[in-house]
């Protein structure tokens, strides 16, 4: 959730809380007045001074004070809450590992290498010509999810084989190997479509990692990556 959205939610919650608090203070004030009445006859020093110098009640000032105190309390609590929420976000050492570099010079056609990126397996597959052909042959209207799901391209791009494969290297396919259904790891080179098969609930992906059958709603996502050299990829 973006920070601005979170801030808005927090704001709404605290505005509601604030009005509850001020209501509570108001009723406490009523209670106080009834107690104060009971003491009216007492000749206290303060009362004597007040009677001479002051008008009995100054509701505007009192209201201002209570509202100011309430507002400060709400702002203080809200501000103090943030560090306790934000501490649950990834820490600096986790964020520092956000990118990894992989050498793929040893990955021959028909082979794949799986590495960990942000705690998830990312598969880099050097596809055979047959696999590429199969991928290209699929008609867009046969696809369950028509979007490319490629973080390196247009968000609305079609799920063509070219839009899924690496730019300029149609044999290289880089994907996060996490089933879009409920997060299991699909098996390589298996399933009816020669691509990936998820053993948990039977989702089937084709040779371009597109969902073809089963409960998964989306194609396997393609993380941001770039070729630093012909044989080196930086993911993230």
């Amino acid at each position, binding site marked *: 959730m973006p920070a601005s959205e979170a801030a808005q939610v927090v704001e709404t919650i605290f505005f509601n809380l604030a009005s509850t608090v001020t209501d509570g203070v108001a009723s*406490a004030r009523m209670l106080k007045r009834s107690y104060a009445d009971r*003491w009216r006859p*007492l*000749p206290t*020093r303060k009362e004597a001074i007040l009677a001479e110098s002051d008008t009995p009640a100054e509701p505007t000032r009192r209201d201002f004070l209570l509202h100011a105190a309430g507002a400060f309390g709400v702002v203080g609590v809200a501000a103090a809450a943030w*560090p*306790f929420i934000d*501490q649950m976000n990834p820490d*600096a050492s986790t964020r520092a590992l956000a990118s990894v570099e992989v050498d793929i010079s040893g990955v021959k056609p028909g082979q794949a290498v799986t590495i960990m990126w942000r705690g998830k397996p990312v598969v880099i597959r050097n596809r055979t010509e047959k696999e590429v052909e199969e991928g290209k042959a699929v008609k867009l209207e046969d696809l369950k999810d028509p979007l490319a799901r490629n973080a390196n391209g247009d968000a609305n791009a079609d799920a063509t084989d070219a839009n899924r494969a690496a730019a300029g290297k149609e044999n290289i396919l880089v994907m996060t190997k996490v089933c879009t259904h409920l997060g299991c790891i699909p098996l390589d080179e298996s399933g009816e479509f020669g691509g990936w098969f998820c053993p948990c609930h039977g989702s089937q992906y084709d040779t371009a990692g597109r969902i073809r059958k089963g409960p998964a709603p989306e194609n396997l996502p393609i993380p941001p990556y770039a070729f630093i050299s012909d044989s080196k990829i930086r993911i993230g």
Partner: protein
Amino acid sequence: MSGHSTYVPKTALGKWFEARLPVVRLLHDTAVSYPTPRNLNALWTFGGILAMMLVVQIVTGIVLAMHYAADSTVAFRSVESIMRDVNWGWLIRYLHANGASMFFIAVYVHIFRGLYYGSYKPPREILWILGVIIYLLMMAAAFMGYVLPWGQMSFWGATVITNFFTALPIVGQPIQTLLIGGFSVDNATLNRFFSLHYLLPFLIAGVVVLHVWALHVVGQNNPLGIDVKSDKDTVPFTPYATSKDLMWIVLFMIFYGWFVFYQPNFLGHPDNYIEANPLATPAHIVPEWYFLPFYAILRAIDFNLGPIDSKLGGVLAMFGAIAVLAFLPWLDTSKVRSGRFRPIFKVAFWLFGLNALFLGFLGSVKTDDIIMGFQAVVWAKLSTLYYFLYFLVILPVLGYIEKPKPLPVSINDAILAKSAPSSVH
């Protein structure tokens, strides 16, 4: 929780709820309509401050536990990763570490307020004893918490304190082995201390509920130490006590913030930034400041007393110094509660306070340091003697020989006398 309830649910939902779970009534009677003496001074706000500190410690502690690893090989490192990498980790850890000290500062003010105004006397004995139990639990929680960063002071503090038990004849050694789960303080010790450190605050919270319950049964003491006679003596808790408590809580937060933001390591020990090393004892082991008076008492007993050797004697004296508090309601024989009306008690009390501070100082120096011409251990013996004299001789005897000043008829009368125009200027 006591007496007649003034709560009347106003809304339909309120009535529906009230018929099924009268928790709103409980809160109303406890924190709104509860009658509180009119003449309470600022020292009475420390109960509220302590409640706040307990919440702060539990909240920051739960958060720290999300990032801390209780394994002797990584504990030190995990604390440092909290300080360096976790978002706001430095803030939360400094809040927790300094929070422990603030908790003790507040509890000492609270205890000494009770001692001066005789808050332990009938009918508040149970209230007082529950307080002593909370204090004991706090000490246990603080000690085990201090072990968790697994620095040099953590390790050697744990070693020294668990060795207290070896002072007991025959059963001592097996008990110590059982407590630390090995032949020396190690991973097993760290793990169980973490578990217990997480548990104890909730036990404290439970006893605090009993403490507050007992308070609401017998009512608050007050600076005059006399009973509440009529409605004129009291004001409702809300808004009177709440407005005052809130102000003092925020003032206390300023004091707390001063340490957290500008001198977060003032109350700690530099050696605890060195990872635990079982092969090297620091040159000078000292506990956290709040244990120093008891540490001084422990070290004061360096002589054998009949069958009791100096080691057992020191441990007994130290635990006795805490245990004696539980018997205080029966040791103080005076019928008058507030020290304000007891001229001789007043002197003894302030001497006791100074003596406690001095014991704290003695706990922080080496026993053979020369203080005012004598070794520190000599002063520690004298101070320990006065500590016990105060409870075991002075308080019991004073009740019989002291002539208290006349007590006011009621709180209301006393306030009127004070604020009458004739007494001003």
